[in-house]
């Protein structure tokens, strides 16, 4: 790209794209709510988080793997890269799981399709092992890049599951057609499986084939839930408040459309 492109004659009226104004307003409300719930004392306290069965089972699943002398397998799926919030949420959960596997002295296998995710995951797991006081138990070769090809990755993870017979499998991230291949292979080796994804199509497969499934926003709330970090949980509360704002807009739009069928202001 030539730098002269940056000094092209600008159109001053285009600095703010007015067609995106409603999104900007909603984004500002979201930022304000997250800042309020996270940094104000009133916002951080005085609420409880409901029990999420899939997350409560994490420690039991790792404990079971330790007792059976079998590894834990964690994979973030083929559909996401490091830019995706789901992948970041998945790596945040990996950090907590790695702390547990380190203290339980249970091997943690992490195959991935993306070398960038592999590099970040290696750092996350290494630091988690160091934080739990067992840095010497960390094995870099357990966090491995297998293939960027979808079914090459699926075959590699399937092979890892069949050969190593992990007792606990975490399928957390963005999955596509490989989701059911993993879930069924994991089931065939008798692993406890905890899954969660942002793909609604693959979610149906996980609900049918896995022991626990994190649905929708549960995946994004998981790191706060597992760490009991009030600041993170407070931002989860902001999610609920945003949901209330959306429900209010939906109800208003339904009433408005009933009274005036020609109205369409909500389509912006």
């Amino acid at each position: 790209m030539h730098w002269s492109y940056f000094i092209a004659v600008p159109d001053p009226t285009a600095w703010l794209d007015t067609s995106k104004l409603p999104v900007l307003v909603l984004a500002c409300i979201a930022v304000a709510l997250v800042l309020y719930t996270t940094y104000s004392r009133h916002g951080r306290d005085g609420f409880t988080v409901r029990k999420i069965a899939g997350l409560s089972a994490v420690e039991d699943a790792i404990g079971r793997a330790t007792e059976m002398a079998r590894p834990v397998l964690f994979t973030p799926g083929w559909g996401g890269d490091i830019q995706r919030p789901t992948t970041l949420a998945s790596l945040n959960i990996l950090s907590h799981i790695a702390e547990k596997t380190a203290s339980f002295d249970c091997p943690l296998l992490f195959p991935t399709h993306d070398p960038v995710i592999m590099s970040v995951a290696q750092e996350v797991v290494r630091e988690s092992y160091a934080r739990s006081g067992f840095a010497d138990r960390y094995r870099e070769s357990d966090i491995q890049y297998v293939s960027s090809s979808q079914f090459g990755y699926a075959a590699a993870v399937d092979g890892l599951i069949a050969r190593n017979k992990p007792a606990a499998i975490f399928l957390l991230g963005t999955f596509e057609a490989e989701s059911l291949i993993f879930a069924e292979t994991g089931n065939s080796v008798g692993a406890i499986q905890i899954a969660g994804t942002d793909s609604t199509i693959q979610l149906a497969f996980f609900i049918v084939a896995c022991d626990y499934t994190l649905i929708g926003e549960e995946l994004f709330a998981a790191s706060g839930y597992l760490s009991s970090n009030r600041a993170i949980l407070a931002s989860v509360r902001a999610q609920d408040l945003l949901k209330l704002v959306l429900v209010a807009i939906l109800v208003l739009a339904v009433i408005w459309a009933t009274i005036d069928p020609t109205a369409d202001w909500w389509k912006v």
Partner: protein
Amino acid sequence: MIPRRLPQILATVFGLVLFLLYFSSHPTARAINQLVVDSYWQIIFGFAILVGAFSFLKVNLQAIDRGDHRWYRLLSIIGLIAMPLTAIIWGRGGDSPFMWLFDNIQIPLQSTVFALLAFFVASASYRGFRARSLPATILLVAALAVLISRSTIGEYIWNQFPIITDWIRNYPSMAARRAILIGIGLGSLTTSLRVILGIERAWLGSGR
């Protein structure tokens, strides 16, 4: 301390700048957006794929040394070396060795793994669609109705089948799907904000 804080500072600065640029259609804003999202990403990925290939080689060579599934590992390494090597020597034309390997080995292998899905759908359905509770029974009935109506025989059995299944797909199923999607959208938004604002740092590996 600075090396640990640097990734967070970069995430905050680039996150905020790209967030603001999204709301601008100015050519400069779009150019910066494209430069960061496309060009920077390609540069990072280019280096990362080298790290990935090196890691793949290292893991497999160590496993061969230990005698851990030696032949599978050796085949993987041969594949990793053969594909780029044939492309470099003979090119990637229609009748090149690279395309022969791609068409006759890689594609059939991928198709084979994909075909496993048909069997896994059957086994997962068998386990999942058991009427153990009221929600499981509703799932079973809805799944059977959709399955029958989507097959050619459905309309011959009862001509109302397509109407009923269209209603199931367009109303209760779509409503649940949209509710989940709203939750995912809000979850993505707050996760991004937590990362940009530095509230959540577990992804950096440097505590919470």
